[in-house]
C-alpha cells in the first residue's frame, strides 16, 4: 500500500461501496463463503451421504500421520522443483547469456516460448502421455542417440513417474520464465553492464551483480506464478497418471478430488484442500517477503 500514501488516494465517497458491492456479492458467495465451508467441512467426518460427525483436528492430524496423505504433500514439494525452480533457473541461464546483446526476432521467440502457457492442460496431458509412452517420442529419441539405457516407461516407473510429470511442468513453465526475463533483462540499463565491465567483472560476476539484481521483480513474479500453477496441477495428473503407479504421483490437488468425489471422504478431502490453500498462500507470501527483504 505504499503507493496509496504517495499518491492522493481520491476523495472519500461512500458511493464507493455501491461500486464494489456487485463484485463483492459474487465474490463472497462463490469464493469466500465456500472457502469458509471448506474449513468447516475439514473439521468433520462426512461421507457426503449420511450424517456427519465432529472430527475436530482429526483430519489435520491425519495429514501428518497417514502416509497416504503425507505422500501427496511431499510429492508437491518435489514437483515444485520442476514446476518452479527449474524453469526459473533455465530462464536465468538464458537471461545471463543474452544480457549483453540485442536479440533479433524476439517477438517470434516470445510467441513460441510462451505457447505452452495458453494450451489447456488437458491438451498438454494428451500430448505428453504420448511422448512419455514406452514407445513414445522420448524413448525413441533416446534410443536413436544411443542412450537406450535411459529409456523407460516414464509414467509407469515408480521412481521416474514423478519427475516425468514434473518434466511436463518444466516444459510449461520454462517459456514463461524466459519470456519474463527476456523482457526484464532488456530493461536493465546498459550503463550498469558497462560499469561492471570497466570494473573487470567476468560474465559470472556480471550475472550476480547486475543481471540478477536487475531481474529481482521478475524472478518474484515467475516464482509466484509457477508455484501457484505447480500446486494446482489437478488436470495434468488426472489425464496422465491418476496418481499412479501406486501413489507415486498423487498430489494434494488430485487427492482433494479423489477423496471428496470418488471415495466419499469429504472431511479429509476438505482438510487437504485447506492445507493446500495454506501452502500456496505461505509460499506466495514467502516469495514476496524474500524479494522485498533483499530490496531493503
Amino acid at each position, binding site marked *: 500500500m505504499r503507493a496509496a500514501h504517495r499518491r492522493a488516494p481520491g476523495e472519500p465517497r461512500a458511493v464507493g461501496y455501491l461500486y464494489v458491492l456487485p463484485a463483492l456479492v459474487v465474490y463472497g458467495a462463490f469464493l469466500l463463503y465456500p472457502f469458509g465451508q471448506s474449513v468447516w467441512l475439514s473439521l468433520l467426518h462426512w461421507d457426503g451421504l449420511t450424517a456427519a460427525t465432529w472430527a475436530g483436528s482429526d483430519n489435520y492430524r491425519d495429514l501428518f500421520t497417514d502416509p497416504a496423505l503425507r505422500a501427496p504433500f511431499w510429492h508437491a514439494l518435489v514437483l515444485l522443483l520442476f514446476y518452479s525452480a527449474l524453469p526459473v533457473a533455465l530462464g536465468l541461464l538464458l537471461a545471463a547469456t543474452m544480457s549483453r546483446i540485442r536479440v533479433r526476432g524476439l517477438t517470434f521467440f516470445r510467441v513460441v516460448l510462451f505457447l505452452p502457457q495458453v494450451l489447456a492442460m488437458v491438451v498438454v496431458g494428451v500430448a505428453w502421455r504420448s511422448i512419455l509412452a514406452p514407445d513414445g517420442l522420448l524413448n525413441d529419441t533416446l534410443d536413436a542417440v544411443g542412450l537406450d539405457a535411459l529409456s523407460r516407461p516414464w509414467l509407469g516407473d515408480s521412481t521416474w513417474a514423478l519427475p516425468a510429470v514434473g518434466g511436463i511442468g518444466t516444459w510449461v513453465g520454462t517459456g514463461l520464465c524466459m519470456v519474463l526475463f527476456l523482457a526484464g533483462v532488456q530493461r536493465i540499463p546498459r550503463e550498469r553492464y558497462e560499469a561492471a565491465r570497466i570494473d573487470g567483472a567476468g560474465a559470472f560476476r556480471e550475472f550476480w551483480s547486475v543481471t540478477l539484481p536487475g531481474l529481482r521483480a521478475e524472478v518474484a513474479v515467475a516464482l509466484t506464478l509457477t508455484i501457484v500453477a505447480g500446486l494446482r496441477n489437478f488436470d495434468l495428473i488426472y489425464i496422465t497418471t491418476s496418481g499412479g503407479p501406486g501413489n507415486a504421483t498423487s498430489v494434494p490437488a488430485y487427492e482433494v478430488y479423489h477423496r471428496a468425489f470418488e471415495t466419499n471422504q469429504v472431511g479429509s478431502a*476438505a482438510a487437504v484442500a485447506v492445507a493446500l490453500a495454506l501452502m500456496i498462500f505461505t509460499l506466495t507470501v514467502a516469495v514476496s517477503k524474500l524479494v522485498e527483504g533483499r530490496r531493503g
Partner: protein
Amino acid sequence: MSTRGERLLTYLILGFFSLVALTPVIGVLSTALGPQSSLSTGFTLPEGSPEWGNFADAWDRGHFGTYLGSSVLVSVAVVTATTVLAVLAAYAFALMRFPGATVLFYLFVLGLTLPQEALVIPLYFDLRELELTDTYWALILPQTAQSLAFGVFWMRTYFRNSSPTVIEAARIDGAGTWTTLWRILVPMGRPAISTMVVIVFMWTWNEFLLALVMVSDESHRTVPLGLAFFQGQQNSDTALLAAASVLVALPVVAVYLALQRRFIEGMLTGAVKE
C-alpha cells in the same frame, strides 16, 4: 569481440528451447493429419496427403459441436460478468476513499492464491442443493468469482495509473463518478481491459476441475472435459484424439496469436507493476 560467440550461444539456447516448446505441438498437429486406425501409439507423420477429414470425424464422434457451444457460452458470460464487475469495483478501490477499502481490496487479492481445489467441494454440495449443478450457472458463477480476484487487481492498477488531470477535468465539466468511468476511463482503458478479457477467456476456456465436478450432463459439457473423455474412448485411435486436441486448443491459440502481447502482458507484468 566476444559478442559473436555470445550471440551464437543465445540463439542456440533460444532455438533449442523453442524447438522443445514446439515439438509436442507439432507432434499433435502431424498426428492429427495422419491415417486413422493406425496401430502406432506415438506421434505419426501423415502418410501421403494429410487427412483433413479427421477433424470432421473427431467433431462428429466427440460431440465437439455441443461442447464448443457450451464453452463459448460459459466463456462469454464469465468474461462479460467479470469485466463489468471488476471495472466497477476496481474503479472504487483505485479512486475513492471509503472505510474498509483496503481490507476489502486485500480480500480480493487473496483470491489470487486460493486454488479452485479449495472451493470445489462445498461449491458442489451448495450448488446441488440449489439445483444448479448441470446448468451453466454452476460453471459461470464460481469462475466469475475466481476471475474477479485477478480482474479487480488488474483494473485497479490501471485506474491508479490513469491521469489525474483527465479525471479532474471531467469533474470540472460536471461529470459524476459514473459518467467519468464509462465515458472517459473505460474508453481510455481499452488496452488494459482487453488484456483482462483475453486472460479471463483463456482461464475459463481451459478450466477443468470445476467442469468435471459440476457437470455430468452431456449437453452442458465444456471442451476440456470433452477431450478428457474422448481420450478414454478413442485411446485406440491416435489420429482422432490428436485432431480433437487441436480442436480444443485452437480457439485460445488463435486469440493468442492475434493478441499475444496482451496475453503475455496480462500474465506477466501485472504483478511487476505493483
